[in-house]
């Protein structure tokens, strides 16, 4: 028995030596380096569907870049490693998650949600962490003071002030109410929309502006308050799917027959249907959601199919927006031939790449539609406005 054990140990040791030697000679250890990106996202709580959506999209893009050989410069090959941290959509948790990520050597970050991104800004700037973030809001985030923060989703200015007002006009809305989350994003979106309506001479259209806590389950009292004003449309802004579903269901239970829009949120359809019910959410207007049967390219179809195969559910807007933004960052590093954050950021500002959504570029500087931005840190690519029909988003023709 003793001899057999000794023989086994010898063979094992020999195999380990061979493996190490083989990897060293083949160059697997020699020049391959790692770039770490932290995915500081909500993996639990009401915004978990969003968090998983972005995290998975970014990881799929990282797999694609790595499978294609990674990023090469200076004689080295760099492969991406994505590390996930749960912020539970709580600002304090987001701060501690980011601190852990920096301690773990992460030099890039993806995150989601303005309320939880806002407290991260000082750390992002101080550590020059290039961050791709799905955040609503406008110049409050995207401005020359935040050079490393790039918004992957269309800003509130694009979604509410431009597309939103276009939609309300097309629908002939005479009485608009807003019911938004009582946080930095909800308050910011509401203010952005009110100012845009005023600039368009439509201030009288806005009949109610209400806010409730993001974790609200019973919207009945505040909806009763709103419905007294007889709105034609209730704009929710950026509610997560489960909250939006409840909000709509409870409004219908109070007899509301008007319309709903949630222009900045892009909720996950499964959670929305489960909490809201197919009948209640019929006619809901959403932005950013590409319907599976109306995708703009074959590459997008492949991404969709791969996502469904891996995760057993369809991707959300944050998946594909995170995916293409990640490709963009990778392309910028490749072009800049460095990981120096200032040089990468400078390269990103003038870069344009073809993606599955169409051409992707950064906008913001000198753009009259984006007041106060002053910097090219807003991603821009084609985006649909959809209307939920029989539980599915269908592209709504705005022209």
């Amino acid at each position, binding site marked *: 028995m003793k001899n057999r054990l000794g023989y086994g140990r010898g063979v094992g040791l020999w195999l380990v030596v061979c493996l190490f030697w083989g990897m060293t000679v083949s160059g697997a250890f020699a020049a391959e380096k790692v770039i770490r990106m932290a995915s500081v996202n909500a993996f*639990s709580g*009401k915004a978990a569907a969003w968090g998983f959506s972005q995290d998975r999209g970014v990881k799929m893009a990282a797999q694609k870049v790595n499978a294609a050989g990674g990023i090469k410069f200076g004689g080295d090959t760099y492969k991406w490693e994505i590390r996930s941290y749960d912020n539970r959509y709580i600002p304090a948790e987001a701060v501690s998650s980011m601190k852990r990520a920096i301690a773990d050597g992460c030099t890039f970050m993806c995150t989601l949600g303005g309320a939880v991104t806002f407290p991260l800004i000082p750390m992002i700037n101080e550590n020059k962490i290039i961050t791709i973030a799905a955040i609503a809001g406008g110049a409050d985030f995207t401005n020359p003071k935040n050079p490393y923060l790039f918004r992957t989703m269309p800003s509130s200015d694009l979604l509410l002030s431009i597309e939103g007002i276009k939609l309300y006009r097309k629908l002939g809305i005479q009485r608009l109410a807003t019911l938004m989350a009582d946080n930095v994003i909800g308050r910011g979106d509401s203010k952005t929309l009110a100012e845009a309506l005023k600039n368009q001479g439509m201030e009288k259209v806005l009949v109610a502006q209400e806010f409730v806590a993001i974790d609200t389950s*019973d919207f*009945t009292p505040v909806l*009763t308050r709103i419905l007294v004003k007889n709105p034609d449309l209730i704009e929710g802004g950026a509610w997560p*799917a*489960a909250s939006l579903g409840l909000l709509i269901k409870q409004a219908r239970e109070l*007899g509301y027959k008007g319309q709903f829009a949630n222009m900045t949120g892009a909720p996950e359809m499964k959670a929305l249907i489960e909490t809201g*019910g197919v009948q209640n959410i019929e006619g809901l207007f959403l932005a950013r959601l590409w319907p599976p049967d109306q995708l703009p390219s074959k590459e997008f179809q492949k991404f969709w199919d791969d996502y469904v195969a891996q995760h057993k559910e369809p991707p959300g807007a944050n998946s594909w927006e995170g995916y293409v933004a990640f490709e963009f960052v990778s392309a910028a590093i490749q072009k800049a031939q460095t990981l120096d954050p200032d040089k990468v950021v400078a390269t990103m500002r003038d870069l344009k790449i073809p993606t599955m959504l169409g051409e992707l570029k950064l906008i913001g500087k000198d753009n009259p539609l984006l007041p106060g931005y002053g910097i090219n840190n807003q991603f821009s690519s084609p985006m649909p406005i959809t209307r939920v029909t029989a539980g599915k988003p269908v592209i709504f023709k705005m022209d």
Partner: protein
Amino acid sequence: MTRQLIVQMVVTGFVLGSIYMLMASGLTLIYGIMHQVNMAHGVFFMLGAMLTYYATKEAGLPYFFSLFIILLVFPLIGVLFERIIFRPIRHLWLAGYMSTIGVWILVEGIGWQVFGTVEKGLQFPIQTLLHLPGGVTLSASKLIICALSLLIILGIYWIVGRTAIGRQMRAIEQQPKAAKLMGIHSDRVVALGFALGITLAALAGGLVSTLYSISPTSGDTPMLKAFIIIILGGLGSITGSVIASFILGFIDSFGGTLFGPQAGHFLGFALVILILIFKPAGILGHE
């Protein structure tokens, strides 16, 4: 203010009060018998909601049958929980308090792994809107849930007031030592009382699962409301908690509608503080 608005606020207040009542009654029952605060009460609410969700959505069982399963499963869970967690430390107030906090955190943590992180939702099988006099609209689901809540509370009154086990529960609540001397098997009665309390929490979760979304933390807010209610109503008093539930329901409805959601929360807590200043034991509590 229109008549329609007033009637709508009254109806909403009544619906909210009924839901709160169901959440709080189990908690106050457990406190009355055991003189222990069950910090894990919200967990049973959540588990009841999850059981209803999986039985209805995944197993395809009728919604009302899923509620019936709660009545079969949770008394057993309650007896086991009382025997394993509570009984060994029943007389150590702080240890009991801490152990239920431990159960709360543990079960919620396991819940994230088992049930997933994406919130779930159920639709009530009857999707009818009732148009009441005065231009008020109410969903049939809320009306049925209110009616069931009232029926369940009447059932609790009947058990506690009219049955032998209920008399034994009251005896243990009022004079534990005397009850023992009279031959009441206190361990068994406490276990049954505890099982009844957490079954009520689970049933509340099952009923409310069609009104709100379901996640492993679904029980946290109801538990907070339930604590406010039982303190307001008087610890251990079922009638006190029923009264407090409707007070809180009407405050949430009137305050939230007239002054906004933030004012609704503020008014609720302000009233609790005021009542406790003038009557520290709560509305029907004993000094």
